[in-house]
């Protein structure tokens, strides 16, 4: 244990790692705002959403579609642009770390990142694919920001005392010209490379390969493998194979539903252990990584005031399976301390749920569930209101909370050691 703490403490000491952590935390308020907007849009204001369907929102709320567009826009401009902000912050912290002009570095990184993925589509209309700017690409954004920061380290002037005189600001601007040119040059190179990638549709080819991986009949092993791949990719911030729905998955879901509808119950459906139903019903309480359990565990047991506040704010979106406020605020994203529970806990849940299905304690999930349904209610609705499914879901959630507790302790130990070392280093100076 002590050795593990030591290794993790050393890892936390690396500058790149610190920059990632700081960048993520500073983005938290925007992620939170975007997550609230997204939950309200998908769960409350859309006809297929949880509140939208059970309270028939379209029947009594006038202009609900206009309202939804409003919240959609808000989440588009917060979550949808998070990676640009991430590039800005990462470059700023990197430059600051090396005592360079951090404002200039931040702006340069934001522009460079925008440039790399900015391609006008064929034809006269200007359409830019926005998906490269949303939170899924945060890791890439931070990397770009970090590299721009390193360019400023190499070519930039040292930071000066801020003085509000025009001459000084101008000299600061000219001083930054060289690193800006270098950064923009490399961004243009990447822009061209990536343009070629998209021209030859390599990006959609990669996407198809990932999708095709799940395009096979489900078995228990396959279900677990694709779930693991999904959670590991999610830890890096990307969407994994189970985030997509494929032909085979659709056929299985439809077979299950059709059987359940003809026979009046879902007990004997043909594919009881299908990846999509197990993963989406039991593996995603609070979004990928069962982060609802982490949020609850933090609220209950964290000694750190900040973590508790982050968790309290993140509880609401986490109930509706929107998890990036926690991903970013704790942070869980790219955090080695949470790699193991984040990637394995969904698999654990699926295994436990499969066991209960195998023991015939509850039927498998077959019926449709509205989007944005609170995690523990998904199996309940998906089994047409089987009370045992609700009990099993609650049982699994409580297990998850208990399983997250040791990892919270571990994090706090590492933080404590880091703080002590920081204090020692301070005294030594």
């Amino acid at each position: 244990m002590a050795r593990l703490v030591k290794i993790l403490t050393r890892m936390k000491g690396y500058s790149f790692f610190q920059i990632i952590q700081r960048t993520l935390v500073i983005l938290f308020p925007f992620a939170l705002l975007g997550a609230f907007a997204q939950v309200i849009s998908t769960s409350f204001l859309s006809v297929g959403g949880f509140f939208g369907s059970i309270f028939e929102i379209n029947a009594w709320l006038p202009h609900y579609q206009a309202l939804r567009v409003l919240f959609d826009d808000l989440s588009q401009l917060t979550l949808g642009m998070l990676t640009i902000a991430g590039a800005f912050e990462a470059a700023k912290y990197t430059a600051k770390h090396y005592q360079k002009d951090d404002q200039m570095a931040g702006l340069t990184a934001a522009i460079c990142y925008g440039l790399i993925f900015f391609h006008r589509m064929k034809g006269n209309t200007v359409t830019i694919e926005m998906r490269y700017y949303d939170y899924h690409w945060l890791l890439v954004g931070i990397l770009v920001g970090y590299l721009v920061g390193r360019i400023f380290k190499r070519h930039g002037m040292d930071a000066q005392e801020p003085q509000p005189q025009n001459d000084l600001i101008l000299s600061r601007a000219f001083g930054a010209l060289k690193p800006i040119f270098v950064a923009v040059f490399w961004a243009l190179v990447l822009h061209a490379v990536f343009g070629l990638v998209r021209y030859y549709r390599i990006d959609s080819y990669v996407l198809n390969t990932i999708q095709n991986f799940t395009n096979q009949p489900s078995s228990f092993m396959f279900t677990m493998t694709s779930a693991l791949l999904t959670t590991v990719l999610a830890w890096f911030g990307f969407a994994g194979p189970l985030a997509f729905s494929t032909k085979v998955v659709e056929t299985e879901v439809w077979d299950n539903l059709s059987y359940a509808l003809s026979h009046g119950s879902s007990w004997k459906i043909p594919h009881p252990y299908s990846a999509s139903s197990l993963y989406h019903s039991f593996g995603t309480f609070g979004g990928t990584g069962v982060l609802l359990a982490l949020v609850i565990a933090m609220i209950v047991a964290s000694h750190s005031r900040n973590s508790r506040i982050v968790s309290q704010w993140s509880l609401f979106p986490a109930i509706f399976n929107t998890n990036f406020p926690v991903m970013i605020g704790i942070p869980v994203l790219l955090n080695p301390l949470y790699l193991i529970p984040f990637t394995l806990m969904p698999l654990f849940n699926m295994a436990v749920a499969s066991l209960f299905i195998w023991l015939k304690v509850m039927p498998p999930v077959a019926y449709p569930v509205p989007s944005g349904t609170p995690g523990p209610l998904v199996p309940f609705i998906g089994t047409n209101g089987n009370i045992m499914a609700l009990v099993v879901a609650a049982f699994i959630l409580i297990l998850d909370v208990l399983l997250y507790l040791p990892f919270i302790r571990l994090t706090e130990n590492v933080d404590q050691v880091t703080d002590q070392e920081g204090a020692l280093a301070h005294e030594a100076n």
Partner: protein
Amino acid sequence: MKLIKKFFRNKKSWLLLGIFFGLIIILAFPSYAWTQANVKQMATRHNSKMSPVIMIPGSSATQDRFDELVQKINQADGRKHSLLKLKVMNSGQINVTGEIRPGDNEPFIVVGFENNQDGYDNIKKESKMFNSAFTQLTKKYNFNNFKAFGHSNGGLVFTDFLENYFDNDEITMKCLMTVGTPYNFEESSTSRKTQMLADFIKNRKKIPDDLVVYSLSGTQNYDSDGIVPINSVAAGKYIYQGQAASYTQITVSGKMAQHSAMLDNPQIITIMEQYLLNQKAKATTTNRNLNDDSPTTDFNNNTGN
């Protein structure tokens, strides 16, 4: 133990978690009601044995256009299909006459329009109006599959509806039969494509690939049924052939092969019974259900009888 004590001292977190679990339990009740109602509705549709024939008359004809045809079919097969007629007014209001007898699994439903003029613009309007009538029908009768029959421009309305509106996982159009439908309006040459045909070809991918299509045409002389050029009917192949599960062209000739007379033609009635309607023996012995119901194989089996 220490942990729990500490936790209970923190009032705010206690309150939050209380709200959380309370919320889940409270929400469980409406969730239960919703899923029960939803599953019941889905099961009703899924297990429904009703498979209506929905018919659209040609331009200038009203919802009463098929009265005689239905009567003749009923005389011929003795199954007493009921006849429901809808008229969609320009205001969007839908007037209903006739009714579906309880237990009738294969009623005829005719959808006519107040505005029944010719022309592509009007086809588009009618297709939109048909969509609202169709939505109403699916809600009321909960069928999971249906057959479509369009005379003349009625076939164009169905084509436009398939390409622009029909998008439903739970309901299949099993068969589309068009009689004298001018897919290229009055153009007798397929090298001159009307705007409508060009649009239909452009959006053909939207046509379900499990749909069985029959296009019937009549010939009074060697090139038209008196009103519609045979090449305009044949232009349907550019839309359906290769996209639908099968596309079959049938040409009738003789003195009742005139465009409007075709609906009285005993040959056409025989073809409808053979290819469009449920087969007698099959309808009484097996329950139709959405999954084992592949229209292509049905058709092959039926021709063997």
